[in-house]
């Protein structure tokens, strides 16, 4: 059940972010300077942390989404759902660690 709660929460978080993200990207159509100003707030360490969280959410949602798709379409899916959940978590930790190291070092390093 908790994997589902996680999936739902991350889904909503990503969705809300997406709304904002499209709006801010829309600034490129209005004024290039304004866009750069907005983007520069993304480049502050605080926002970097937020970005990292967002990517964590996307990664979990994506991997777990794949698991759900396998549960639905692969014959043995329901049998191995628990193992696959472990797989999702392990994959998530690895990929996320890789991302966080790179992203945070860039974000903090540049300031």
């Amino acid at each position: 059940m908790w994997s589902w709660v996680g999936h739902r929460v991350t889904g909503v978080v990503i969705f809300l972010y997406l709304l904002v993200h499209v709006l801010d990207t829309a600034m490129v159509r209005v004024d290039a300077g304004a866009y750069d100003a907005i983007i520069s707030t993304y480049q502050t360490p605080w926002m970097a942390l937020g970005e990292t969280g967002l990517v964590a959410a996307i990664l979990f949602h994506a991997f777990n989404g794949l698991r759900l798709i396998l549960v639905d379409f692969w014959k043995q899916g329901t049998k191995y759902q628990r193992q696959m959940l472990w797989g999702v978590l392990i994959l998530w930790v690895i990929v996320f660690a890789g991302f966080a190291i790179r992203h945070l070092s860039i974000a903090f390093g540049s300031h």
Partner: protein
Amino acid sequence: MSVSIPAPRSQRIDPKYKRGPKSRGSFEMLAWLFMRLSGVVLIILIFGHLFSNLMVGEGISGIGFGFVAGKWASPLWQFWDLAMLWLAMLHGTNGVRTIINDYAEKHATRAWLKGILYVATIFIIVLGSLVIFTFDPCVTGSTLPQC
């Protein structure tokens, strides 16, 4: 203290447990299918997006107006972002629609929330598409060399 309570169980089925009318067609099935198909495609799109924006080169620090303009100069990236926008929005909207259906108990609340959701979705999709299609590297404030 004793509270008065209505008789609990009627003979047959209490009207309040009656299910609403059956939904026609296979909308829910198609929505379900769409979630899975778009999910698979989104993985590629989003991972590609994240990778090219945050991992390659200077990562987040490299992003700016110029970066975007450079990307959208290529039709591949235009198409990529357009597909991502549509799929993610529809996927997300449908996801949030299920969530609203789950948690909003009253019919009116449901209708309102979904109304807001759909308006927001349409707005964002239209806006996003316009931005991608009508992108102009020489918009006001642009400091790109070609302008």
